[in-house]
């Protein structure tokens, strides 16, 4: 069973993602802020991380940087209510960028695809 780590500060979003991603057959872990997400990704070895950008304290982009420093093969999906970050180069190192929507089809498709393809190891 694949493990997906979701970092989002809103409890209602965590509730929703828990329902939907469990139904997809994933083991879902939650972090309510960026530091928790970094810690969990180190300790629990998730197969994929879904990061919100706007969180209290450290934001999702910075958290992504820290996580990738430790494991640059880990697929990361940026998932935010802001569409404007889509064009920011800061989010380019993410594997995917999905704008938050009540229709989770796009997010679920993205997660499925990323987990299916084997990420090539980076050289250097």
């Amino acid at each position, binding site marked *: 069973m694949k493990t997906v780590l979701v970092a989002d500060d809103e409890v209602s979003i965590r509730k929703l993602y828990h329902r939907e991603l469990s139904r997809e057959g994933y083991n879902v872990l939650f972090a309510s802020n960026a530091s928790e997400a970094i810690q969990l990704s180190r300790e629990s070895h998730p197969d994929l991380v879904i990061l919100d950008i706007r969180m209290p304290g450290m934001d999702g982009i910075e958290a992504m940087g820290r996580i990738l420093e430790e494991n640059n093969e880990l697929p990361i999906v940026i998932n935010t209510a802001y569409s404007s970050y889509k064009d920011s180069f800061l989010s380019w190192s993410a594997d995917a960028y999905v704008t938050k929507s*009540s*229709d989770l089809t796009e997010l679920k498709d993205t997660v499925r695809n990323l987990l299916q393809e084997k990420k090539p190891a980076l050289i250097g």
Partner: protein
Amino acid sequence: MNPPVDAYKAMLERLCASSRMSAVLVDASGSIVWKNEYSEEEFPGLFVPGAGFQTELDRGTLAQLGRGEPLSEGSAGESGELRRTESGSVYRHSCLHLGEAGPDFQLHCLLNVSAEKRLEEHFLLNLQQLRSMKEIVDILYQSMSTPEVIYLCLIAVTAQMGFGFNRAFFLQVTGGRMRGRFGIGPSNPEEAHTIWSRFATQNFSSLRQVYEDFTRSGGMPDPRTQEIAIRMDFELQKHGWHATQRESLRGILGVLARGKPAQLHASDPGTQVDRELFERLGTDTVAVVPLFVRGELAGVIIADNLITRKAINEADLNVLKTFAGYAGLALERSHLYDELRQSVAKLQAANETLKTSQQRLLQAEKLSAIGELAAYVSHEIRNPLVAIGGLARSLIKDQVDDPDTAETLQIIATQVNRLEKFLRETLDFVKPRVAGVVPADVLQIVRESLATFKNELSENAIEVELETSEDAVICQIDPDLLRHALSNLIKNAIEAMKGGGRLLVGVVKNGVSGTIRIGDTGPGIPAEARPRIFDPFFTTKPEGTGLGLSIASQNIRGLGGQLELEPGDEYRTVFRLTLPLQLRQELVTARS
């Protein structure tokens, strides 16, 4: 000896002795019976026995005399009539019939009035010149444009009711250079005949009329004369113009330096300038009229009589002297007016630019503030919406047994979806984005945008008229922003044609830009709303946000394009979207 004749003679001897009158007594046969000494002295051969008076104007009278008829009134009656001899003398001729007391005799008295006549003619000429000058000056001072003033000057110099030269040229003098600008008048006798006979039939009563006719006919009666003018170009510096003692220069340079109108002959000693001037003009005598504006030599009028070869006399030059002063003043006035006009135009343009940039700034500030707010609102609303809608969808999947609950959940999901769509279509585009500019096929995007409205178009019975150019229109744009702008325009057009109509969609390429036109046959935008339709929050629709067009126009401008409203014709509302074309920069760079 005839007694009455002797009596007459005696009387005439006494009479003539006391005045310088010439008298001739003629009998019924036309023979001279007597004449006094002055007759022969002043009018030699004037009266030929049997043939009568040998003057041009007098043949009718002679015929009458020859027939022995009494002279009728209005002819050489007792009060006398002016006659001119071939040699130019003018005399007063009066005739007395002396036939009552015997045989018929005619007494012809002749008084030389040449001097008085010359004086009178001189006065009349001066008067006429004064009148012409006044008219010329009046017209010159009504003119506000420099070229018009110059043309009027040339017309005044050449018109019969002006100074009557055949041709006139204006050469401008600036920075030590003298260049021909205008030339008018015929270039050959045939042309002269055409022009002059036309003028004769037109019967102009003022120079203004001549000028108006001149401008109506295209302003160039003989292009060859204009050609001569513009071919004249002299570097005065090369011919001694820089000298300190300019006044002593020879030829036209000297005339210009002295500043007074003068006559020049091809045979006069001069410089290369004179030789070339006469060669180009093809004449041997010219009048040169220097024109001064604010004390500076501004140009020169050169006039000649190419066709009639009429000599230029001192009187002509005197009139030109007076004229030159007025012409200079008129030029100065028109120069000032030109400067004023230019300054006003510059100020107006600057004012316009300022206004436009102020408006742009204001709009940009407004949009920027809206953008910040929109991004915040969007985020704050979207998160709860995701939870509400997402959970509702999630619950639906749980196979709810109660159909009412299932329907309620469906309503929640649908309504949330609607709100999210609104956020996507409006607020997301407010935030100035880092546009993802790529070369994109505009027609392809237009077709895609139209396809998304397929249902709305058919539901409202709207016919689409697609006009495209043959070539693909590839523009440097962010396809998302263009799609957003297009869907706004198409949506507006559909809303304007609820009862059906025609939607114009044109995609063409022109020069360095691609143009998309979206037009509808709806009721049109009210005139008072037209200037404001791109303002943020301005809307004519009850449920409109007033953001669609303002965001679209801002985004298109961000791409280096423009979104405008056309005046509209059969399509009452037409929006024109201009985008920069992809110029294949890579290819150009690679080749060079």
